[in-house]
């Protein structure tokens, strides 16, 4: 690993151990560019995730491969570039995560179990199913 290159750029190799040093470097750059402290954490996460992806996906976890990171600040924006040289990102294959995912099926029997104490079935019949629901009686 080396972190030479022109000012504002950092080169690391694809070992996860180097990510901490990348973040330290990035924090220094962001401070130099007068980015507020509270924004620095998020940018560390963002760049960290992009570089983790390069290690994991572009280089399939192999070490020793280069990743280039650069930061440039202008009056109205910061531009951060991350570059790897492995397998390409395939936007067609990418599906964003569905945080609203709800189990689509199987909710019926789940609900049944919430309301009864025993649920059993006897499928020894020739056809169909016999379900037995048992609910204990509350004393009182």
């Amino acid at each position: 690993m080396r972190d030479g290159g022109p000012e504002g750029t950092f080169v690391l190799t694809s070992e996860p151990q180097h990510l901490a040093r990348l973040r330290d470097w990035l924090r220094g750059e962001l401070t130099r560019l007068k980015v507020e402290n509270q924004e620095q954490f998020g940018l560390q996460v963002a760049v960290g995730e992009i570089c983790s992806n390069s290690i994991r996906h572009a280089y399939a976890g192999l070490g020793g491969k280069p990743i280039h990171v650069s930061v440039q600040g202008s009056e109205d924006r910061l531009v951060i570039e991350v570059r790897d040289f492995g397998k390409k990102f395939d936007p067609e294959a990418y599906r964003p995560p569905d945080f609203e995912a709800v189990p689509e099926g199987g909710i019926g029997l789940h609900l049944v179990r919430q309301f009864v104490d025993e649920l059993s079935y006897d499928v020894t019949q020739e056809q169909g199913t016999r379900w037995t629901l048992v609910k204990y009686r509350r004393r009182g």
Partner: protein
Amino acid sequence: MEIQVAQSQDVTVVVPTGDLDMGAADQVRRVLTELIDKGQLKLVMDLGGVGYIDSSGLGTLVAAMKQARAAGGNLKLCALQDDVRSIFEMTRLIKVMSVHPTRQEAVASWG
């Protein structure tokens, strides 16, 4: 099941009365899909008149919510009776859907 549709500024309020079970699910699905297809994407479902809901009813609401969200809107719920609310809790839907105590608050939440 009886279903009324009311307009409150740009929010469409759907008010079903009766049991939202497997027998009613198709009817509710049709009403909601038609509204979304017409571009009425700010939807509130007032469940004050619904005393029973099952997994078919839940499935219909979730499908419509996803359809509305995908088109840039949402389906929010309000006025859940206690029993109905317990079903939303058991299925964790209470955390996924936008649920308001009253119709007024649901409509106002659109800002």
